[in-house]
């Protein structure tokens, strides 16, 4: 898949996964990669961007004598998902139809 397109989709996938509950880096990689292949190093900039846009917030929790960084979806993150479903996706299907029509 095109790298830019994948990046955008991954952001929404991460947010959708976080909608099911707070999570940490490895868990996200494990659950999202069967759907859309994602490595540990590609997840980092995505989380970073989501944090910068305030779509997620973080907190640390201790786990077996070490700390783990947890990510939690914010109201802005939820809005982003709704936007994707109501605006981006219909647009994508239109683009799909357009490209298909040309072939």
């Amino acid at each position, binding site marked *: 898949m095109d790298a830019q397109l994948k990046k955008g989709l991954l952001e929404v996938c991460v947010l959708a996964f976080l909608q099911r509950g707070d999570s*940490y*880096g*490895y*868990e996200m990689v494990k659950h999202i990669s069967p759907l859309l292949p994602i*490595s*540990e*190093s*590609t997840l*980092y*900039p995505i989380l*970073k*961007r989501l944090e*910068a846009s305030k779509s997620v917030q973080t907190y640390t929790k201790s786990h*077996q004598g*070490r*700390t*783990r*960084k947890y990510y939690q979806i914010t109201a802005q993150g939820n809005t982003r998902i709704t936007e994707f479903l109501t605006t981006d996706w219909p647009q994508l299907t239109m683009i799909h139809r357009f490209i298909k029509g040309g072939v």
Partner: protein
Amino acid sequence: MERVDFIKELAAELSYKTKPREIHQLIDYYDEMIEDLIEEGLSEAEAVARLGKPKDLVKALHTEEEIVVEIPRRFHPFLYVLLILGFPLWGSLLLAAILLMLSVLLVLWCGPFTTGILGITGVLSGIASVVLSPLLITDGLFLLFSQLGVGLFLFGFGLLCLLATYRMSKLFSGLSMACILWPRQLLTNYRKKVI
């Protein structure tokens, strides 16, 4: 490769290319990843191998320009040589600048010093004159009142001088601090630009 080596190599690859805070976050992120992979049943070596080479990770990060900020390396070695060779020149200039500033401070503080001395002597002699003036009663009332008047005047003058000293010291101590802190500020600003 072991976890510690991986982290060390990652830190080395990131230094001078990334903000210190960012380095910290990245190291925490990968450290947590390795621990989680080990917990999942992988051996330490397998977990590290799965993440990839630190060099490649850093290279991939560089394409994300919003995250990594290129920071120029520190001084060129040639600059160090120039700095040492040029010491007789810039060293003496620096010394002259420091001494100049010191003399400015000295001149500045002459004011409060003078008024301070005047104030203390004025107040003390004023008190002495007023308290001791009744002793002049045997020499005549005219002398007594003159002494009392002069004493009161000296006391008042002394108080004014002390007030002036206080005001001036307050003003000058701020100025002096600024004089001392200014070069330091200059240096830290410069450092911020370099590193």
